C-alpha cells in the first residue's frame, strides 16, 4: 500500500499564513511531480475559496474523505482557535515574529512537543529591517525554523486566488526566492522519516 505523507498546518493563532502555506506547499509538490490533497478544516474555507476559483492544479476537499485518497501528500489546513494538537506526527507551524504572535505559538508548540510531534516552524511575514523582528527571526532560525519574509507576491497571488507557483507569477519581484523558500519547507517535510500510513479505508 502506498504511503501517504500526512502533514498538518497548525497554529491556534489566526492570520499566521496557514492557508497560504498549505496551498503553496501543495503547489510546490505538484512541481515535483507529486499529487497533493488539501483537507480544509477551517470554517473560513480560505483554501477552498482558492480551489473554487479553478486556478489550482490540485484538489482541496472540505472534509476528511471516507475512502483512502489517491495522493502522495495530504495537507490538513487547520483552523484558528483549534487548540487540539493534530493527530498526525508531522506539524508545520507558521508564525509571525511579533511577541503576541510568538506567545500563542510557543504555548501550542509546547503542547505538541509534549506529545512527541515533529514540528517544522515557519516564520512568515517577517521584516528583517525591523531590529526586533530580526532578533526573533534569528532566534527561531537558530532553532531550525524556515523563514518566508514579508513579500508582495503573496498578496498579489491572493488577489487572483492563485499560488505563487502559477505561471502568471513568473515575472513577479523576487518570485524565485519565495518559491525556493516554499520548496525548502517542502523538502524538510519530505525528508522527515516518520511517515504515517493512512489507515482510512
Amino acid at each position, binding site marked *: 500500500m502506498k504511503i501517504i505523507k500526512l502533514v498538518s498546518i497548525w497554529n491556534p493563532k489566526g492570520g499566521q499564513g496557514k492557508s497560504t502555506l498549505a496551498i503553496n506547499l501543495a503547489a510546490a509538490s505538484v512541481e515535483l511531480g507529486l499529487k497533493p490533497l488539501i483537507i480544509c478544516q477551517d470554517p473560513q474555507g480560505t483554501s477552498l475559496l482558492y480551489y473554487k476559483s479553478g486556478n489550482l492544479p490540485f484538489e482541496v476537499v472540505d*472534509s476528511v474523505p*471516507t475512502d483512502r485518497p489517491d495522493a502522495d501528500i495530504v495537507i490538513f489546513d487547520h*483552523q484558528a*482557535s*483549534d*487548540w*487540539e494538537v493534530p493527530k498526525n506526527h508531522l506539524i508545520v507551524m507558521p508564525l509571525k515574529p511579533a*511577541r503576541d504572535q*510568538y*506567545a500563542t505559538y*510557543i*504555548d501550542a*508548540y*509546547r*503542547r505538541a*512537543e*509534549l506529545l512527541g510531534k515533529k514540528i517544522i516552524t515557519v516564520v512568515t511575514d517577517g521584516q528583517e529591517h525591523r*531590529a*526586533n523582528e530580526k*532578533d*526573533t527571526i*534569528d*532566534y527561531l532560525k537558530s532553532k531550525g525554523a524556515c523563514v518566508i519574509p514579508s513579500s508582495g507576491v503573496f498578496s498579489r497571488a491572493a488577489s487572483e486566488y492563485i499560488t505563487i507557483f502559477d505561471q502568471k507569477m513568473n515575472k513577479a519581484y523576487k518570485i524565485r526566492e519565495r518559491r525556493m523558500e516554499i520548496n525548502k519547507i517542502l523538502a524538510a517535510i519530505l525528508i522527515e522519516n516518520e511517515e504515517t500510513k493512512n489507515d482510512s479505508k
Partner: protein
Amino acid sequence: MIVNNWIDEENARATELVKTGNTTNSRAPLLVKNPKQPTPIRRIRSIYIQESHSLAFDKLVFEHKITKGKKAPELMEEAIELLIEKYSSKE
C-alpha cells in the same frame, strides 16, 4: 546576538502553562469539534417474512422518510436489537 529580552520570558511562561494543561485564558470557550460518526459496516442477509409484515415495514420506512427519521437499515437494526433483547439469555 539576541536582543529581545522577552523570548526567554515567553518560553518559561509556556513551559509552566503546558504543565497545567490549560490555555492562557482557561475560562474562555474552546472550539468544540463535532466529527461525523462513521457509517457502520452492514452485511446483507436475506430473510423470509410474511407479506403483511413486509408491507407494514415499507409503510413504516415511508413514514420515517417523510419525517426525516431513521432509515430502513436503522429501523431493521432497531427491530433486531429488540428481538435480541427479548429472546436472548440474560447472561
